[in-house]
């Protein structure tokens, strides 16, 4: 997607600090991290000369349909339930090594992030996902193993 620099280019670049950040660049970084939203920059929101950029930014950060706390979305029309992501997901393996970790049906569903229901992957227990919380890392286990790009993080 976008990086902080590209976001910065769309901001007023006046460093007015009305957003509570020390600079527009800092605001861009906060946008990236989803700590703030475009609405949090008053000039951007209110002044007509920024309208176009404001709309663009809102489009980028519009809460995606079905997005979860980690930003994970499943394109249900693409997913065909192959289970690659389920079996490759590290916390799934750690929490259910002989079930999903070994390619089988879940033996212990309690902490599984990904499971297959009616032929489509379902996400739950997102606190287990490595992209969740303070110590998150950019895990891409479920992305690189999907043959059809049905999982995306926004």
């Amino acid at each position, binding site marked *: 997607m976008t990086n902080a620099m590209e976001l910065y280019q769309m901001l007023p670049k006046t460093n007015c600090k009305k957003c509570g950040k020390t600079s527009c660049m800092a605001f861009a970084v906060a946008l990236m991290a989803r700590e703030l939203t475009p609405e949090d920059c008053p000039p951007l929101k209110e002044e007509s000369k920024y309208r176009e950029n404001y709309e663009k930014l809102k489009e980028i950060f519009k809460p995606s349909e079905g997005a979860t706390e980690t930003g994970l979305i499943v394109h249900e029309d693409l997913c065909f339930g192959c289970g690659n992501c389920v079996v490759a997901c590290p916390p799934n393996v750690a929490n259910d090594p002989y079930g999903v970790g070994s*390619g089988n049906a879940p033996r212990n569903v309690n902490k599984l992030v990904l499971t297959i*229901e009616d032929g489509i992957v379902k996400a739950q227990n997102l606190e287990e996902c490595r992209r969740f919380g303070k110590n998150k890392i950019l895990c891409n286990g479920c992305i690189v193993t999907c043959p059809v790009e049905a999982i995306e993080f926004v």
Partner: protein
Amino acid sequence: MEKNYYVCTGCGLLCDDIEVESEKNIINKVYTACRVGVAHMKEVRGEAGFRVDNAPVDEATAIREAASILKNAKNPLIFGLGTSTDEAQKLAIELARKTDATLDDTSSFCLGPLVEALLQDKIKTCTLDDVRNKADVIIFWGADPSDSHPRHLSKHSYFPRGSEKQRGWEEERTAIAIDVRKSHTAKICGNYFFQIPPEGDAEFIDALIAALSGKLPKTSYNYPPKKILELANILKGAKFGVIFAGLGLIYSLKDMEPVFRLMKALNEKANFQLVPMVGHYNMRGFNENLYAETGYVNRVKFENGTVKHGPEYSVVESLKAKTVDAALIIGSDPLSSLPRSVSKNLLEIPVISIDPCETLTSKHSKVYINTAISGVESGGSATRMDGIKVSFKPVVETARLSDEATLKKIMEAL
């Protein structure tokens, strides 16, 4: 807690870990199966039916008519059976013997030669459980399991942990795709995708064999020798390698001789097995059952208690030459799947279609018997693509006859 698992008969993998929630014979939810399997299980079904000349009849009439077609035929063709249980297949073989029929299945134009080679111990093979537990180098050759056998990579061949593969796929397995196009499976294989031109397989095999013994690999289509040498090096290092051979490979070879040579060369340097990518859930079962009974995997003709075998008894050749004068088609739709020039001859002879689904063939049949979906509405046993026997029970009940029951009734009526 002991879970109640069902077997999915949606493809040759026969996944045996499917949980189902159903109520009053309606399947509400299916867990762990792929989308193909779910569609297979949840197929919406109309009324059971028997038809003669496209008019509804009762069971007895349909069975009587079917029996009389077979009785009056000199050389009926019995074809299909890839999605029938072992029990039904054995009955069909017995029926073929009784009616002096020509008997064949879809393997005669796909993976038959490979299954035959495995049964005759000409090629080393292994089970999918071996693959999960041990395989370090996995080749998908002319096969795209991500489309044809969706859970292949996740349940067996690439992603799962196995007894000797505890550290995960990234570290311990290399998956390789050799194909004419970048399939979904090839995509997963990333840099280990080797794209060859159509019909280029035999030459690629020769080049690979050369590379395995350190010679410069040459192909008429100038495949970069360096890449082939790299591939050969990976293969040489395999402690437990497996080739999943698909239709793409088979269709591009005149015979299986290049495959034999490759397997020999690979096993001089490393340890390799081959597993055919059987599509229909019990095609391999048909091959094995017929082999046990006659010594052949397909293309047989029964005559006064003896059995003949040859290309002229394949479904294609016998229809082309019009040597068959009636047909019993079980769970197959040759009018859609065979070339028109061949299948049109089916329209000239009386056809009995036994199928859980209405097909083009069933619509053009003299007799149509709408049967239970094997593995969903009726149980039995079957042979997984790797030769493992799997038994299954029905998920829901139905008033429809199973293939097995239908064949039994036809046999009694003869």
